[in-house]
C-alpha cells in the first residue's frame, strides 16, 4: 500500500526548524546585489586602466571609441554578475542555450573591442619581451579581478545555488570581464596572440577560480 501523503511536519523536523527560527530579510534582486558590487568593480577597473600611466594610444583620435567599447564591456560584465547572482537562486537557473548565448556574446564583445583598438592604434609586443608582457598582462587583470571575484562568489554562494560551479564560473567570468575592461585601456598592445593568450586567459582563469570558490563554499555549508 502506498504511504499517505505527508501533511504535517514530523516532530523532529519541526524541532530543528524551531531551533533555527528567526525572521529573515529576503534576498534583493540580482541586479540590486550586482549594483552593490558595481562601485568596487569601477574602482578596480579604474586602477587597471591607469596602472601603467597614460598610454600612447590615449592621444589617438579613435580613443573615444576604444574607451566607449570598454564601458560597454564593463556594463556587460555587470550584467554577467547579475546573471551569476540570478543563477544562484533556486529555481532560477539559466537554460543551457541561454548560457551558450551569453558566453558567445562575451567572446563577441571581447573580439570586437580587440579589433576596434587594433584599428585605432595597432601595437605589438616589443621583440624579446613576450614572456614578460604575457606575465604582466595575465597576472595584472587576474589580481585586480580578485576583490569582485571574491565578493561576487560569496554573494552567489550565500544564495543557495543549485549549480554552484556554474554560478561561480559566471561570477568569476564577470569579475574577469570587469577587470579587463580597464586593463585593456592600460595595455597598448593589440597583437591577438598577446590579448588572447594573456588577457583572455586571465578572464578564463577568473571564471575557473569563481567556480572553485563557490563550489568549496557550498560544500562547506552543505556539510553543516
Amino acid at each position, binding site marked *: 500500500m502506498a504511504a499517505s501523503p505527508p*501533511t504535517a*511536519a514530523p516532530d523532529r*523536523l519541526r524541532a530543528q526548524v524551531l531551533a*533555527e527560527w528567526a525572521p529573515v530579510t529576503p534576498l534583493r534582486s540580482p541586479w540590486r546585489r550586482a549594483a552593490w558590487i558595481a562601485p568596487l568593480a569601477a574602482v578596480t577597473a579604474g586602477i587597471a586602466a591607469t596602472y601603467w600611466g597614460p598610454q600612447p594610444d590615449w592621444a589617438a583620435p579613435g580613443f573615444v571609441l576604444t574607451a566607449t567599447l570598454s564601458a560597454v564591456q564593463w556594463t556587460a560584465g555587470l550584467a554577467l554578475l547579475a546573471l551569476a547572482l540570478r543563477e544562484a537562486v533556486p529555481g*532560477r537557473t539559466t537554460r543551457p542555450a541561454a548560457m551558450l548565448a551569453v558566453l558567445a556574446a562575451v567572446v563577441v564583445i571581447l573580439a570586437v573591442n580587440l579589433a576596434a583598438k587594433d584599428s585605432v592604434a595597432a601595437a605589438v609586443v616589443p621583440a624579446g619581451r613576450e614572456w614578460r608582457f604575457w606575465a604582466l598582462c595575465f597576472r595584472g587583470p587576474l589580481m585586480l579581478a580578485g576583490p569582485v571575484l571574491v565578493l561576487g562568489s560569496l554573494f552567489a554562494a550565500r544564495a543557495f545555488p543549485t549549480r554552484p560551479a556554474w554560478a561561480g564560473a559566471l561570477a568569476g567570468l564577470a569579475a574577469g570581464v570587469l577587470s579587463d575592461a580597464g586593463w585593456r585601456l592600460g595595455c597598448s598592445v593589440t597583437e591577438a596572440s598577446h590579448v588572447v593568450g594573456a588577457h583572455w586567459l586571465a578572464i578564463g582563469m577568473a571564471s575557473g577560480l569563481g567556480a572553485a570558490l563557490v563550489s568549496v563554499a557550498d560544500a562547506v555549508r552543505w556539510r553543516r
Partner: protein
Amino acid sequence: MSTGSEREHHLHAQMVAYQAGRVEAFDALYAALAPEVRAYLVAACRDASRADDLVQETFLRLHRARATYQPGLPVRPWVRGIARRVYLMDRRAAARRGRREDAVVAEARSVPAGSLGRGGERPGLERALAGVPASARQPFLLHHLFGFTFAEIAARLGIEVGAAKVRSSRARVRLRALLGGGADGR
C-alpha cells in the same frame, strides 16, 4: 477548488509570512508543498522510504535558505530547485557510500570460510547483497557484519535510529528472498 494562480498567491503569502517569522506559515507551507515534493522525490529516486527522508531534508534546507526566496516570484520552482539539489546531493552521497560498501564487500570476501556461512555459499551471498537497495544494505552490513549498534549506525549515516533498524530489517527480508529462504527466514 482553487485555481493554480490562487494557489500560487496563497503560497506566496505564506512564504512572505514565513520569512517574517510566523511559525504557522511553515506548517501551512509544509502541508501545501510536502505531497508535491514527495511525489517529485519518489519519481526521482524510486525509493519511497528514501524519498520520505529526503522530504525532511528538503524542508530543513528550505528553512535554512528561506531568505533566498524573492517575494513576487513563484514559490514552487524555488522549492523544486531545492528538492532537486537535495536529491542530487543524496545521489552523490549514495555513490560515495556505494564505493565504501564495495570496500566492505571486499573485506567480507577476506573473512575466513565459515564466518559468513559455508564457503560455497559466499559468492551467492555477495550476489544477493548486490540485489539489496544500497540504502538498506549499508545498515545491514554495518550491524550484522561489523557489529555496530543501530545508534552508532544512525550517527554514522546521519539517519534516525528507527530508520537504521527498518532499513536493516528490509535488507534482511530481501536477502532471505534472494537466497531462496522464503519469508520465514530459513
